[in-house]
């Protein structure tokens, strides 16, 4: 599903920062993987490259057989929309849209009719046990509920892969467990490929494979 060959990434700020160094990585379809490492080790940078939110300098990235390199903005947007589902630490829901409209939004950019996308969004919310919260604004939801809405939004386009950056970072341990449970079910029941960035060992333990990053390099498996 994901193949990285010799990926390098440098942030050219006042002091150039070589964040990712010669990353080689393969993730198969249906894997549940966590990327762990200290803060500032380059986990988010790696995930952003995987999610086509950011570019890399050298190397090769293949997503589901598609070479991700020098894509036009439109093509990148389309790939993000159809192949990738994002979950962020801070949920990144649109505050003035209710849960249903937030979940339906990716389908809006696919040109799906309003009626159909609301139907699909309702279905998705229902699966995550949020049917009764469909008309609530994000501000009226708990952290766990917000993250489940974000998950529903990530899932609605039926993507090839879910990318989650510290999805439990803003949640208490109990809701963290609930959210991780959902990730595990999605992986086990629907064969979803999932990559979770975290610095929480408890989260890492619940995934099937842990990739460790130290100073921008992948640490050899223990």
């Amino acid at each position: 599903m994901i193949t990285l060959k010799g990926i390098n990434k440098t942030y050219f700020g006042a002091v150039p920062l070589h964040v990712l160094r010669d990353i080689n990585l393969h993730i198969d379809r249906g894997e549940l993987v966590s990327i762990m490492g200290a803060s500032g080790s380059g986990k988010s940078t790696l995930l952003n490259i995987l999610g086509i939110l950011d570019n890399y300098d050298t190397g090769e990235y293949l997503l589901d057989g598609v070479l991700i390199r020098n894509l036009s903005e439109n093509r990148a947007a389309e790939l993000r929309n159809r192949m990738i589902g994002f979950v962020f630490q801070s949920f990144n829901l649109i505050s003035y849209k209710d849960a249903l409209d937030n979940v339906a939004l990716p389908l809006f950019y696919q040109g799906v009719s309003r009626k159909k996308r609301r139907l699909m969004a309702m279905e998705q919310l229902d699966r995550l046990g949020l049917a009764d919260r469909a008309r609530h604004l994000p501000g009226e939801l708990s952290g766990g509920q917000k993250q489940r809405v974000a998950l529903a939004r990530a899932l609605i386009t039926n993507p090839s892969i879910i990318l989650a950056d510290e999805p439990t970072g803003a949640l208490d341990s109990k809701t963290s467990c609930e959210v991780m449970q959902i990730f595990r079910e999605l992986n086990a029941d629907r064969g979803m490929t999932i990559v979770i960035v975290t610095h929480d060992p408890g989260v890492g333990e619940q995934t099937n494979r842990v990739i460790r990053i130290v100073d921008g390099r992948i640490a050899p498996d223990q």
Partner: protein
Amino acid sequence: MKTGFLDLENWREIGATLMRNKTRTLLTAFGIFWGTAMLAMLIGGADGLERMLRRNFEGFASNSAVIFANRRSISYQGFNKGSGWSMTTADIDALRRIEGVDAVAATDNIDQLPIAAGRYSTTTAVQGVDQDFMKAFLPTIRSGRFINESDQRHKAKVAVLGINVANKLFPAGNAIGEFVNLQGIYYKVVGIASQEAEERINGEKIDDTVTIPLSTLAFAFNRGDDVGAAMLTALPGWSPGKLKPRIMRVLRARHPIHPDDTQALFFFDVSEQFAMVDSLFMGITLLAIFVGIGTLVAGIIGVGNIMWVIVKERTSEIGIRRAIGARPLDIVVQVMSEGIALTSIAGTAGIVFAAAVLGVADTLSGVRFQISFGTAAAIFAVFLVLGIAASIIPSLKAMKIKPIEAINDK
């Protein structure tokens, strides 16, 4: 993928973003509203004022002048300063022969006389006119006809009643063909007339006057050959101003008037008035457009400003949208449609408001102040184009927002 400009979601979002800061939106909208209303009201106001002024001259041939004999201002050939003289029908014939003169309408007036028809009676002004009257002054014929050359030649006892006189004497209508009694002489009613203009040559408005042939009037009232006033129209290519020296020369040859006496003939050049009104209102209209567009542009700059602020505020939201699949064009469409929605709603409200105000001006003045549909459409087009222009820079800024900013912004 389609851009979703017409998608209901797009419009719901526009509503939601604009409503999130109501005060700010309202203030911006007011800028557009006021600019559009100003532009529309100034244009309508200028046109209405022009119509009001022109109404005074309506029914006058524009290339014409009103003349009548005045007191001498310089003593001459035994006639003292301040002494009067009269124009005669022979003078009128002489004036008609001047090159460049189209028509000379001679008139004479008699103030308030009793007039009767059947059991109804009233008092009325009486004017005598000749066949040229219709060329210089364009009365509105309500029914029947006006005095013609044959009436004048035969001193026919026919009369054209002013509409107000007709209503008093023939309350049931059907005046045409009936007779009216004026000082013991019966005149057959051949027409009913009124006038649009507020201005009158001399005497009353035609509405309150009984018009008979000038020759009949001279005979019936022992007026001899005297003519009260004349309205002279120039041929195309000529103007009353150009003809004035020739007219003076002809009249001086026929009457003892000092060569330097410019006061002895009253000469009112209608064409000059028209020209003055023309240039005055050309100026006023230009000023109105200038001021109106200026106000509108100020409002539009406000829109550009607000769109810019909205885009800055929503950097992270736009980033999220890009992350979940919005193309740059989707973002441009979203920002542009917000700007366009704001300008069209506020601008339309401005036009509607101006139309209401101008409508009230219509009723109060009896003159059309209302802007035409074409003008309204043009104003609509102007503020729409300006609104689009104002949204371009903010929407390009929004388009450049990278999805990564959504995450980094936190």
